[in-house]
């Protein structure tokens, strides 16, 4: 008789056997399984949150592929790219450069689950994750490759992670760690549970919505299609969390708290500016903070609490950072624009500024005054004074500049000395992360460490730019050619003439 999936599924995941030719522990070393301290039979409780057959997977995914490709081909023929706002294009270049390779890293992480996960059910489910992430890599590459004829910057979808560009180094440090270095349990809790279930909702849902509003149907369609896969395989995190909570809840809490902060800082760098500054004003739906509060605080955190996890100890500081960190990063990204491979939108015209003040009541006080200085320099013709001459000090955990996690009123240095070396941190939270596992971070050298160590020659900004792989054709500049600052000049002249 013909069967339903439920009829045969149990047999397809009954795959463990008793080893006798080699020690099973050698074939499943805890350094990869992450199952140390968890009894072997505890993994029998690991249950897939969704059941997929190979047969259904290839059918459904084939349909999805055809759909995305048809939309993409039609839009390319229509030449819609040329009509997109420059700031929106910049956001898509930043995203493709920084995220495409992460999709490929996720292929390898899922492959690790296929090989080393402590449950055969998880090892099987990893196969679909492996395929999904291969899809996301290839979709992002195809999308970017098709746009090379418009702009070389899309070359960075393939190239970025082969360079030392500082934002890439920061992202690489995080994703190399939680996807390629971590054992299965940690990779699952940090990547599937925290990053994908928590933050990818922001990255893909919010950006898809903003992209659609900006008229970029092609990118929006791609992001949404990727999200349908992510929503499925991100759920691998929950059964793993359940098993670890039953046997080592302290470890689960620590992994999630560290990953949550590190991920929030990277998203504050990528998604924060894209949502609050790059998306054209009339197309914005929500601020980065509003999205974070809705998706992370209201949804993700509530789910975690159901599993017995507490909110991270640094919750109040995290909320404070939501009012500031992305603004600090935006100012830094714009100021250090020659060190980027995408153009930066300042996003602080009068109208945009009003929006920022509405969404972030402290924005003017904390950040507006700094932009005023930038504006004065632009309008006085001193563009050189709006450009960097040195590199900023970097955090030993997030690899992001010191002073970019909180407001400009909270700049007290945070550091510690270990084995004679001083480590600086962008916040007390990053320092706490470091203290959980000093050996995980201490031996790494930040871009600035390498600069000071003489690895980057000549030891000046051009030398650093060359070391980062930045060539004049991609080096970032203001997306609007500084025209946005003119209204301030006109207004100040009007004020002067009235006086």
């Amino acid at each position, binding site marked *: *008789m*013909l*069967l339903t999936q439920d*009829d045969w599924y149990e*047999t*397809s995941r009954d*795959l463990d*056997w008793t080893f006798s*030719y*080699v020690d099973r522990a050698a074939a499943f070393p805890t350094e990869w399984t992450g199952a140390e301290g968890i009894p072997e039979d505890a993994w029998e409780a690991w249950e897939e949150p969704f059941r997929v057959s*190979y*047969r259904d997977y*290839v*059918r459904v*995914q*084939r349909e999805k*592929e055809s759909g995305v490709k048809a939309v993409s081909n039609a839009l390319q023929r229509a030449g819609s790219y040329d009509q997109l706002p420059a700031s929106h294009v910049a956001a898509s270049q930043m995203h493709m450069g920084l995220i495409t*390779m992460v999709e*490929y890293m996720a*292929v*390898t992480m899922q*492959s690790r689950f*296929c*090989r080393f996960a402590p449950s*055969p059910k998880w*090892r*099987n489910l*990893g*196969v679909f994750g*492996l*395929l999904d992430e*291969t899809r996301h*890599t*290839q979709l992002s590459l*195809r999308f970017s*490759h098709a746009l*090379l004829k*418009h*702009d*070389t*910057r899309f070359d960075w979808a*393939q*190239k970025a992670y*082969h360079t030392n560009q500082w934002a890439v180094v920061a992202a690489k*440090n995080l994703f*190399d*760690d939680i996807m390629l*270095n971590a054992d299965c349990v940690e990779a699952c809790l940090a990547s599937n549970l925290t990053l994908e279930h928590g933050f990818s909702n922001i990255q893909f849902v919010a950006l898809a919505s903003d992209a659609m509003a900006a008229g970029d149907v092609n990118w929006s369609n791609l992001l949404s299609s990727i999200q349908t896969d992510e929503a499925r395989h991100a759920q691998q995190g929950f059964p793993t969390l359940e098993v670890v909570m039953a046997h080592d809840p302290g470890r689960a809490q620590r992994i999630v708290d560290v990953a949550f902060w590190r991920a929030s800082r990277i998203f504050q760098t990528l998604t924060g500016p894209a949502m609050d500054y790059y998306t054209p004003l009339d197309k914005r739906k929500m601020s980065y903070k509003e999205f974070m509060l809705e998706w992370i605080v209201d949804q993700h955190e509530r789910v975690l609490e159901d599993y017995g996890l507490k909110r991270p100890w640094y919750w109040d500081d995290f909320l404070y950072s939501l009012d500031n960190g992305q603004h600090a990063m935006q100012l830094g990204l714009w100021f250090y624009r*020659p060190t980027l491979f995408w153009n930066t939108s300042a996003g602080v015209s009068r109208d945009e500024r009003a929006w920022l003040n509405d969404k972030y009541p402290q924005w003017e006080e904390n950040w507006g005054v700094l932009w005023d200085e930038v504006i004065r320099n632009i309008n006085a013709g001193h*563009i050189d004074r709006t*450009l960097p001459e040195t590199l900023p000090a970097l955090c030993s955990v997030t690899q992001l500049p010191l002073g970019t996690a909180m407001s400009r009123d909270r700049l007290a240095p945070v550091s510690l000395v270990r084995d004679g070396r001083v480590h600086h941190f962008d916040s007390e939270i990053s320092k706490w992360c470091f203290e959980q596992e000093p*050996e*995980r*971070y201490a*031996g*790494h050298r930040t871009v600035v460490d390498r600069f000071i160590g003489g690895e980057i020659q000549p030891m000046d900004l051009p030398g650093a730019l060359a070391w980062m792989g930045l060539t*004049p*054709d991609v080096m970032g*500049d*203001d997306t609007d050619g500084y025209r946005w600052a003119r209204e301030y000049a006109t207004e100040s002249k009007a004020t002067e003439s009235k006086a």
Partner: protein
Amino acid sequence: MAQQRATRLRTWSAFGDLGRRPSEYEVLTHGMNHTMGATPLELPPDAHGNRWLREHRDGMALTVPDWDAFRDPDRVTYGSYVAMQDDRETYVEGLLERFDKEQHDERLTAGRLDLLALAVTPARYLVHGQQMLSAYLQQLAPGSYIATCAAFQTADQLRRVQLLAYRTTQLSRAHPDRAFGIAERTTWEHHPDWQPFRQAVEEALVAYDWDLALVAFQLVLKPVADAVLLHGLARRLDTVGAPLDSLITDDLVLDAQRAARWTRALLTFLTDADPGNRAVLQGHLDTWAAHGTAMAAAGARLLGTSDIEATALSTWDELLAAGGLTRPGTPSA
């Protein structure tokens, strides 16, 4: 600073001077392993992941100037993979429906059921081993072209596991008096003719150096197991009169043939890349070949037909010959 005018490219700069337009397959696969530098991961040099990659991948004796020069002869992309496999699964679905109408399982004789219980249904453990081993080749592969071949191969193995589970369950329902769905693990763990397979899987699982893992699995375990338990099995099932499983197995042979094609291409690629690579591979083969010959002999016994052993060995020899490799005890190529 003057606003830079956007410049344009025809394809990834990473291709350099390719001298032709890259295929879609190449555009979607090229140069995606960012961990090939002196410190593989952007982490402390002594981080676990860095130590593992240095010891098990970068420390291997194979010399290849450009791993991204390898190409899958089938040029499989995600899109082509799901389309191709959807067609294959539609075909198998049709087989299942057709034979179900004919009450295929109910009509199987005792001898045929014995063969299915001995040589077919216990294979899901073997194939799960192959799934894990394929994934290991993927995660340590030094280039994304090879890794992508191994990724799709991993998925092929899950396909086979699920089809085996489907057939096992069908057989258990049609023949509740037999131990389908119950006895496979015992057969896999204890039947003497399964032991060479299980031993090879378990030992391959601890062969962590990538070049050794490649030889142990991709050049020994998988080609011999596929030659016996797919190619040989399909013929045997047909001969004894179990047409449904014969046809399903025939379809799985297509996946095995695709795996053999990229493996053969990889062998040629490696030996062309550096003449010294042949000796490295041969050295590993010398220590692993006995597993292959034992599996071929045991597989023939499982299927109850001795000619399968010779056929499997000759298929295996042919694969090895692509890299100028020979089984110990056979005349040099």
